[in-house]
């Protein structure tokens, strides 16, 4: 058995308590350990990525055979998600350290590591109840990160975030109850096996479970009509945290991909057509909500948050087809939109720190206006899905894959019009922030703050502060240039995902010790 599979979970799980409980008075030590952890995580993720080439590899926790114990499954999809998480995490972590966000409240690094543990664990698990547990880990860690450093608005938005997710967790458990009651198992492979045996005329309860799970995952993925929480949460979260949250919505998307493809997916009579019917319309409305929100935003952080909503809509539209081709497109778009959202939040952080607030109202140009404008322009291009960055390719892939004649027009119209509104909205924002500001002179601002070097708004961003953003952009560029090989790999991941029998055989095969 390949023990490396559990490493990305155990590493942060052991590191976080040490950081949180032993190093809690020493930020330098905590930073060092945390960065070490993130780097090690990246190394492990790369290793797993390399190892994930063949059949799905199964890790039997406690050495119990599946489906009786809990298993981890390393396949191409989970490998790619873990790699994505660890790259993003390192970038965000370096940004948080460089900008000092991590020291504006307590326990940032411990929560960050726990957050990683939860996300990675969710990607690797092959057990649906364990998925719930890791959802809870990543959620509770995200609650802590969300309200990191406190403040009125953040606390209230954080409260809402907690409440809606608690409601979601409750629903998750309801769904699991129904699922266990009808199938008697929790292992995803075993579920897939048992679902095949349920005839449609006896499938009412299973269908309810599938639907409830869709809503649960949709809530995480900010899918209409359960997307309402996202804008306020992301807009009020500390910017690096919001950047990290770019992966959180993807956890929901991943869960839909995994569960609603392997367990309730194509070829399962019991739940045939159930999810597809609802997912695409919901995705389309989500795109609209995102685009409208971007266009109507008064402030930068909500604007970005709404753009995340829109990108999730596009992603969900691609997923809703449940075809291998569309899934590859979805995965490519997933990777892209994660970095696009993250880089926008990181740029926003640099800008908002200099401007002193996240309003789009015109105020005098800050230091390094040109640099920030360039970074914002690049990030906005990525998010809006304009060339030359990967968003355009992602969008093309998604559009190209959504060819079902019945729904094509709606999906295309939504995605393309959504792009247009997003472009207009981002252009407005950029113009307000970086162009109009040039025509305003600051006459009174100087008088108010004589000691300019003390003022964070006057301090130019150093190389370490800008570097993570640039790296994230470089990732997007690499994703563009290497679109072929990347899609090739993702094709492999999709193929595995749709190979239900292969998955079931790998997990329930004879490898476990009896």
């Amino acid at each position, binding site marked *: 058995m390949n023990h490396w599979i559990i490493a990305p979970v155990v590493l942060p799980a052991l590191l976080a308590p040490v950081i949180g409980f032993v190093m809690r008075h020493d930020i330098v030590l905590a930073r060092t350990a945390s960065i070490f952890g993130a780097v090690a995580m990246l190394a492990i993720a790369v290793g797993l990525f390399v190892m994930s080439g063949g059949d799905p590899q199964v890790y039997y926790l406690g050495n119990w055979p599946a489906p009786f114990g809990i298993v981890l499954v390393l396949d191409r999809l989970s490998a790619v998600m873990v790699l994505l998480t660890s790259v993003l995490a390192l970038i965000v972590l370096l940004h948080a350290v460089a900008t000092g966000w991590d020291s504006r409240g307590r326990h940032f690094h411990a929560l960050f590591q726990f957050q990683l543990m939860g996300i990675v664990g969710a990607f690797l698990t092959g057990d649906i109840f364990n998925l719930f547990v890791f959802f809870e880990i990543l959620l509770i860690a995200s609650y802590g990160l969300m309200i990191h450093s406190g403040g*009125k608005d953040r606390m209230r938005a954080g*409260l*809402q975030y907690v*409440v809606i997710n608690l409601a979601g967790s*409750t629903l998750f458990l309801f769904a699991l*109850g*129904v699922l266990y009651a009808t199938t008697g198992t929790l292992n995803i492979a075993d579920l897939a096996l048992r679902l095949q045996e349920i005839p449609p005329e006896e499938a009412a309860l299973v269908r309810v479970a599938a639907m409830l799970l869709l809503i649960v995952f949709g809530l995480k993925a900010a899918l209409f009509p359960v997307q309402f929480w996202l804008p306020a949460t992301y807009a009020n979260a500390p910017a690096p945290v919001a950047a990290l949250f770019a992966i959180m919505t993807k956890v929901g998307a991943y869960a839909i991909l995994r569960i609603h493809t392997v367990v309730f997916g194509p070829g399962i009579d019991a739940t045939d057509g159930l999810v597809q019917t609802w997912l695409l319309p919901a995705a389309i409305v989500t795109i609209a909500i995102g685009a409208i929100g971007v266009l109507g935003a008064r402030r930068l952080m909500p604007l970005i948050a709404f753009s995340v909503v829109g990108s999730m809509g596009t992603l969900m539209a691609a997923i809703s087809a449940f075809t291998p081709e569309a899934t590859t497109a979805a995965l490519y778009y997933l990777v892209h939109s994660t970095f696009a959202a993250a880089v926008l939040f990181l740029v926003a952080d640099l800008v908002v720190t200099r401007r002193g607030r996240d309003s789009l109202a015109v105020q005098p140009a800050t230091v390094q206006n040109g640099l920030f404008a360039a970074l914002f322009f690049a990030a906005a291009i990525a998010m809006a899905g304009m060339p030359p960055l990967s968003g355009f390719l992602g969008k093309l892939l998604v559009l190209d894959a959504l060819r079902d004649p019945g729904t094509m027009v709606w999906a295309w119209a939504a995605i393309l019009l959504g792009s247009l509104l997003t472009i207009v909205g981002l252009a407005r924002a950029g113009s307000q922030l970086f162009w109009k500001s040039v025509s305003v002179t600051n006459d009174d601002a100087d008088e108010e703050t004589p000691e300019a070097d003390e003022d964070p708004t006057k301090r130019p961003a150093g190389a370490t502060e800008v570097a993570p953003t640039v790296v994230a952009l470089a990732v997007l560029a690499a994703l563009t240039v290497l679109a072929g090989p990347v899609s090739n790999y993702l094709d492999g991941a999709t193929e595995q995902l749709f190979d239900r029998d292969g998955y079931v055989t790998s997990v329930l095969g004879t490898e476990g010790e009896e």
Partner: protein
Amino acid sequence: MEIVVASSVAALTAAGVYLILRLRTFATILGLALLSYAVNVFLFSSGRLAIDLPPILSKYGDAGYTDPLPQALVLTAIVISFGMTAVLVMVALGAFVESDDDKIDMDSPDETEEGNAP
């Protein structure tokens, strides 16, 4: 017996839902607590009901036992929801202290385009 359990779950859920739709955080907390009761019982009942068959192995081999797995799941769920509730209570308290107001809804969006500080 089944109808008793099912109706209890229904009542707890309904009450919980009604309370989380109220406008104050405290009611929401109560509602989520009730929902948590409801879902625990619901999950527990997915192992079906059994009287006097606790899954404690006895020395006599022929004894019947109820399904232990949902019980373990509920235990995990109880503990997790305890942690969650604790955090929720703290965040609610924090939000109240910060804003002098325990409304669950946010203030209506600012018309002034004033931004938030980072």
